[in-house]
């Protein structure tokens, strides 16, 4: 069994802001909006695949931040706490729609491929965004949490309510799928040239 440690639960800058929000500090609240609105929007949209609902969920997340900041315990990082709230709200909405997030085992295993190296960076970014949007939800969510929002594997596991091994599996399959997509693009370009 491999042990996975989290970031130390020190009182970081974000945590200090949350403590100030708990005392009714609107400026601290707005600073957290500035830091997390885009990240949580991307995360919620990835889960819900609906921009309007994602905005509603993010707004609810910040409402909870404003109203419940005094409940925050700095055991987990603020980013983990906020992503967890967003995740739970999104899952509630999916349930209300009669949908649930698929379990990791239910997702298809993407084809592994070699890493492309020919595309210029800008085009790679565009291709990667398309590939990320096409990933199964759980894989895309894990990729967003760890590779775009810098949560650790353990923190992502906490947000998603699964074990660290499950997160590592989602990440590995997600990364393989992304590389495969980029590789296909390289091949297509090679064929067209």
């Amino acid at each position: 069994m491999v042990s996975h440690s989290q970031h130390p639960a020190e009182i970081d800058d974000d945590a200090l802001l949350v403590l100030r929000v708990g005392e009714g500090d609107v400026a601290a609240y707005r600073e957290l909006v500035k830091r997390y609105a885009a990240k949580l929007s991307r995360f919620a949209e990835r889960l819900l695949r609906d921009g309007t609902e994602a905005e509603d969920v993010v707004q609810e997340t910040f409402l909870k931040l404003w109203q419940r900041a005094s409940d925050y315990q700095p055991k987990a990082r603020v980013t983990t706490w906020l992503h967890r709230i967003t995740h739970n709200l999104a899952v509630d909405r999916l349930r209300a729609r009669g949908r649930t997030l698929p379990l990791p085992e239910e997702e298809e295993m993407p084809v592994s491929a070699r890493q492309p190296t020919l595309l210029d960076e800008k085009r790679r970014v565009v291709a990667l965004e398309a590939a990320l949007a096409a990933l199964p939800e759980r894989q895309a969510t894990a990729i967003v949490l760890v590779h775009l929002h810098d949560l650790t594997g353990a923190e992502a596991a906490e947000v998603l309510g699964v074990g660290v091994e499950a997160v590592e599996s989602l990440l590995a399959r997600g990364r393989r799928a992304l590389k495969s997509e980029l590789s296909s693009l390289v091949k297509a370009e090679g064929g067209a040239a």
Partner: protein
Amino acid sequence: MKTPLSLERFRALIAAYGARPELWPEAERAAALALRDASAEARGLFEEEAALDATLGALPEPDVSPGFLRRLNEVPLRAPQKRRWFALPGMWIPAVSWAFAAVLGLGLGFSTDVLETDEADGGTTVAAVDSGAPSSEAATATGEEDFSALALDALDELEE
């Protein structure tokens, strides 16, 4: 001393977390870095994942519309904070202090048998309710006698 990491575990780590050591589990990071530096195969795997990490790192954050941002910023104006009363020291400390003082006062009032003033300070003794003597008789004559003597002295002076 750190436990060496197998190439198989290194492969699994890098497949999941990519070539960003800061994302690797802290407990395995040092061993994984040592293996990367020591093994050409591990180094090859690391470099292979680095390109994907570079592209992931270049993905821009999505734009948040100004209207949505304004709605988020206005949340504190529309929603009051739900504060736990016990989380507000400025409110509960005085309340608890008054309650404690009241309980203490009532407790003392019901449980004390005798309240005495210093006899040297005026010489008056007040008997308690259950001392056996009626309250009207409780006051000793000491104070009354002093007063009567003074009154008589004053009358004598007037007569003179």
